[in-house]
Structure formats: C-alpha cells, structure tokens
C-alpha cells in the first residue's frame, strides 16, 4: 500500500467550491441543451425542463412545452402502453428503451424511442427522459416486412402456378402421347418411311414434354409438398438413394463409397432425392474410367457440409453457377438425355434445409458437389 501524499488531497475552500459548482452547472446546461437526444424532466406528469432537440422532435418551441402534460403528446392508442412501460422502467432501472408514436404540432405522427430514469429535481422526485426519433428506421422495417411478405406471397403463388400448370397439362398431354404411340404401334410399317419418321418425332416430343412436366411438378413440390423436418440418418438416406440407382450403378460397375455420415434434421424423402440426383449425375457424366463416387461429411458447429466427389467428365468453372438453374443443360440430348431440372431440384431442397449448394470442378478432372445442411433444422421458405 502506498500512502497518499498530502498534495493529493484537495482543499475545499468556499471560493473554489463556488467556482466548481458554477462550472458544472454550465457544463450540464451545454450538454443538456446541445444534446442530439431529446432530453427532459417531467414532474407531476408535466414537462419541467426540455432541451432543443426534444422541442425539435415535437415541432414546438421549448417554452411552449413547459408545464404541459407529457403524455398529451403521445398518440392516443399508445398512451396506456407508454405509461406502463415508463412505470416498469422506473422500477426496474433497465436501460432498454420502448417505442411509441407521438403527434407533433404539425399533426405529423412520428415513431420515437424513450428511456426514463428516476431523479430528484428541486428536491422532489422527477423523471429524467431521453427520446430519439426512430421514424425512419420504423418505416424501413415496415417496408422490409411488406417486401418480405410480398415476396413470400409471390413465391407461394409461383409454386402453386407451376404446380397447377404442370398438373393440368398432364391430362391433354397424356392424350397426345398415348395416341401418337397408339398410331406408331398400329401403323408402323404400313405407312411410308416419312410417316414413320414424323410419328417418331411426335412420340419423342410428347415423351420429353411429359418428363419436363414431371420434373417441374417435382420442383414445385419441394416447397409446397415437403414433409415437416425430423431426425434423419444420412447413412440410411445414402443407402436408399443407392438402392434407387441400383440398375445404373450395376450397369457401369460404379463404386459408390461413403464416410461416417451424421444425422440431421430434415425431410428424409427430399434428402434421398438430393443424394440420388447427385450420385446419379456422377454416374451419368462419367469419363472413360469406371465411375468412382465418394460421399463425405464435415461438421462445423451447427452446419454439416456434405461432399459428393466423382471422377467424371467435370464441368467448366464458368458454368458452376448456371447449372443449378431450372431447365439448364450443358449437353445436347443426344449426348446426355435429361430435362435439366435435376440440379435445380437439388438446390431447392438444399435451400429449404437452410443450406447452400456449389460445385468445384474442371473439365476432365471430376467434380465435387458441396452442400450444407443446418443441423438445427430451421426450414427456410
């Protein structure tokens, strides 16, 4: 311990004290009146002292406010809440403000946030309040809320539209494809070569459109037809996907391996579809070698990153984003059949599970698809 030396002690002479008091009063006055925060003292429910900023927010001159009931400036509907919040805050001494609406002299409604503290003023209990104008933020919040709602509504509408379109187009298309096939079956070889060719293009076109509609229907169902999330064993999911692809895997003697895979909260059917599309692609876009597909998973906090790695033909990095768009194809149908919906469906499933999907690849060097799943299972629309 060091003893305080005598020079540290401040001798309070009456003159010095008077000077100090004067100085702090001036400092207080400057602070109070120049503060960018509306500041005021209320006693018996009426303004006793107000600063310039409060007067500015309310649209009055400072002296117009003195003596008037403070609650009178609060929008009628908000008065009870303001009173309750103020009482609560004075008791608890918390510093988290509450928001309400005021009416200015010009009859404009503004959103403000207030905090209050209990003080003594002229030897009697009073309330010291601080108030800031949050109208702009409130308006932004309101707009954001509206835009979000609008977007959700338009998304749902779009999904329903896609569903109805693909569903209702099925019936007439079934007629077209069935009857062209019936024509082909009954009259092939009875008509000339031209007729056979025309019929076969008609049959092929109808068949392709059927596939497109089915995939579009599946795509729209990811959002609207999804099941609630439950705990899903990813090992079982991968095994189910592989069993669905059994014929394709056996046909090209593909090797599909996987590491230890964690459980996640999700929609099991959709996760099977996700793995099935990715493993299926890895086999479909194989190179000259026997296809090898490996699946692994890495957990980091609440997020699991899965990877599906293959030794296939690879993808030019310039397409690494566009391949996830709907009906996007990089090859002719003669080279590789398909509707171009597979990866779009994958992306939609991943996004519903709060994750992202991407690919790392170079032509001729295989591809690795990565996707994340939020383990907490928060569904995103």
């Amino acid at each position, binding site marked *: 311990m060091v003893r305080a030396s005598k020079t540290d002690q401040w001798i309070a002479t009456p003159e010095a004290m008077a000077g100090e008091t004067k100085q702090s009063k001036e400092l207080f006055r400057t602070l109070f009146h120049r503060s960018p925060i509306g500041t005021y003292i209320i006693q018996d429910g009426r303004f006793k002292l107000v600063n310039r900023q409060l007067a500015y927010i309310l649209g009055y001159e400072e002296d117009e406010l003195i003596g008037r009931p403070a609650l009178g400036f609060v929008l009628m509907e908000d008065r009870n809440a303001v009173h309750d919040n103020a009482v609560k805050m004075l008791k608890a001494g918390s510093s988290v403000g509450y928001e309400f609406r005021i009416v200015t002299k010009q009859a404009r409604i503004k959103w403000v946030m207030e905090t209050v503290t209990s003080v003594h003023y002229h030897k009697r209990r009073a309330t010291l309040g601080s108030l800031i104008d949050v109208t702009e933020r409130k308006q932004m919040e309101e707009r954001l809320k509206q835009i979000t709602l609008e977007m959700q509504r338009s998304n749902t509408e779009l999904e329903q539209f896609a569903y109805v379109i693909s*569903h209702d187009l*099925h*019936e007439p*298309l*079934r*007629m077209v*494809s*069935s*009857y062209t*096939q*019936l024509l082909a*079956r009954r009259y092939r070889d009875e008509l000339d070569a031209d007729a056979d060719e025309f019929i076969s293009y008609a049959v092929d076109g*109808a*068949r392709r459109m*059927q596939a497109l509609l089915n995939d579009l*229907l599946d795509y729209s169902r990811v959002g609207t037809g999804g099941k609630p999330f439950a705990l899903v064993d990813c090992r079982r999911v991968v095994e189910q996907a592989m069993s669905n692809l059994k014929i394709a895997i056996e046909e090209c003697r593909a090797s599909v391996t996987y590491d230890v895979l964690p459980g996640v909260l999700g929609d099991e059917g959709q996760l099977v579809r996700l793995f099935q599309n990715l493993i299926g692609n890895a086999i479909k876009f194989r190179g000259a070698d026997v296809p090898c597909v490996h699946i692994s998973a890495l957990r980091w906090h609440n997020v699991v990153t899965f990877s599906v790695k293959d030794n296939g033909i690879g993808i030019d990095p310039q397409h690494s984003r566009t391949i996830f768009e709907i009906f996007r194809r990089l090859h002719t149908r003669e080279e590789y059949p398909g509707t171009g919906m597979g990866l779009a469906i994958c992306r939609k499933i991943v996004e519903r599970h709060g994750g992202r999907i991407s690919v790392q690849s170079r032509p001729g060097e295989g591809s690795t698809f990565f996707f994340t799943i939020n383990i907490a299972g928060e569904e995103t629309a």
Partner: protein
Amino acid sequence: MNSKTLERRLEILLVDDNPGDVRLTMEALKDGDVQNRLHTARDGKEAIAFLRREGAYDGAPRPDLVLLDLNMPGVSGLQVLAEIKQDPVLRSIPVVILTGSHAMDDIVKTYDLDANCYVTKPADFEQFILTVKSITDFWSVPVRPPEEES
C-alpha cells in the same frame, strides 16, 4: 392356346367422362389377351344406374370389375366408390381406381373407401397396355365372388 381364353368373358364397367380415355382403354384391352366385354358409363350417375340395373340398364350384366375414374363432373368417382362399397350386393365387385391424379390425398381417400386397387394412368401407351393387362389378368381368375353364391 392360353387357358384364359377358355374362361368366360370378363364383364368390365369403365366409368370415365373423357372419350379419349375410354377409347384408349378399349384399345389397350384389345391388345391384351383377356376375353372381355367393355361397358362404359360417362359419369357417376350412369355408373350407379348401370350397377343397379335401373332404367335403360335393365338386364345389364353384373360387372366382374369396375374401372373408375376419379375426376368426373356431377357424381364424382369417390361418391360412386362409396355407393358400391356401402351396397351389400355390389360390395364384392372389385373396383380399380384408374386416374390421372397423382395426389396423395386422393389415393388415401380411395383406400379409406375400400378401393381394391389404385392405378395412375401412365402417360406411356405401352405401359398403359401392360397396366390394363395386369389388372384384367389379376381379376379374371375369381370369376364368381363368394357372396353371390348365397
């Protein structure tokens, strides 16, 4: 010769409002090798009249199999199914729901009403032939349901 051709004709009632589908089913049956006679009803009301042998359907045969479309105007396929399965005389007739709908709700509802089978009409005609063939093959064996003996 196949032994099935020796059996008596399978009486089939097809309930469907879409003439394109009716014709398609007829053609598919033609390509199958089950002896059959196809009767058609264009809506639910006609189907029930046929089954109860009312009005113009006096003397209509009791079908061995009903192929029922779900989406019909007026009396719906579900209502026809309910009528059949609530009727002690008609109850034993096998009913196959044949429809373009993939909706899970519909499938569950029809099984709740004791449909014997639910088949989604395939878009592929070759597949449709196979479907119709497997249905008729399956139900052409028990020609007389036990309830009718009594």
